[in-house]
């Protein structure tokens, strides 16, 4: 894998961290985003992630490149999983190394923040009340907007 990837199988946190290890880096910060059992008070049984893969990879690489320019001593890597994920599965791993921990924490936090803001990946949340696209809030309340046949409206 390169320093960014979109994967269908289980992510290896260690493999992502290994991308940023180097002799000059005293600090490595790794973030794992894991599917929770509850989201906004709703029980979650399954999350289906999909990506606009070519753009998602390009955008992740742009984020890594711009952060390495902003924080010249940092090295970053990230992997995002797509497909059907269950509670406890790791959906995303971000890693940042730097000579000192302040830069490594800052870089890792900025990396996940920008991924969540800009990388074209979506998830459909499945729970006891049905399924809907996370972040596309109105759709689950508006009867005339279907979900490709999956939609059971919430509440």
């Amino acid at each position, binding site marked *: 894998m390169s320093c960014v990837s979109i994967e269908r199988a289980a992510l290896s946190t260690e493999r992502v961290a290994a991308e940023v290890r180097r002799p000059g880096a005293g600090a490595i910060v790794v973030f794992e985003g894991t599917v929770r059992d509850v989201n906004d008070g709703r029980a979650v049984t399954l999350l289906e992630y999909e990506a606009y893969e070519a753009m998602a990879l390009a955008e992740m690489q742009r984020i890594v490149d711009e952060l390495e320019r902003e924080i010249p001593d940092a090295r970053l890597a990230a992997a995002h999983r797509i497909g059907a994920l269950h509670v406890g599965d790791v959906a995303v791993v971000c890693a940042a190394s730097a000579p000192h921990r302040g830069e490594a924490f800052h870089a890792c936090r900025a990396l996940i923040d920008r991924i969540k803001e800009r990388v074209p990946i979506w998830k459909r949340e499945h729970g006891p009340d049905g399924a809907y696209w996370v972040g596309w809030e109105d759709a689950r309340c508006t009867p005339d907007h279907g*979900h490709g046949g999956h939609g059971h409206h919430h509440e």
Partner: protein
Amino acid sequence: MRVTVLYFAGARDLAGRAEERVDVPDDVRTVGALAAWIEQRVPALAGRGGSLRWARNEAFAAMSDAIEEGDVIAIIPPVAGGCA
């Protein structure tokens, strides 16, 4: 001019299609003009205009960006990568 339009996630559900090749009128020369034209063809998207972003050739585009023959234009609903 022919371009490819990609619909993802909730936008795909609303449009009832994932991808199409379209012939755009001659006066549609920017991403913004194309977006307005697509919203006329898929009215369900129009109400979502405020939450949609548009990409041209795998990068977010400004509405003023020019479009060219063969471009791949994607409608990007609110993204939701990660978990927490």
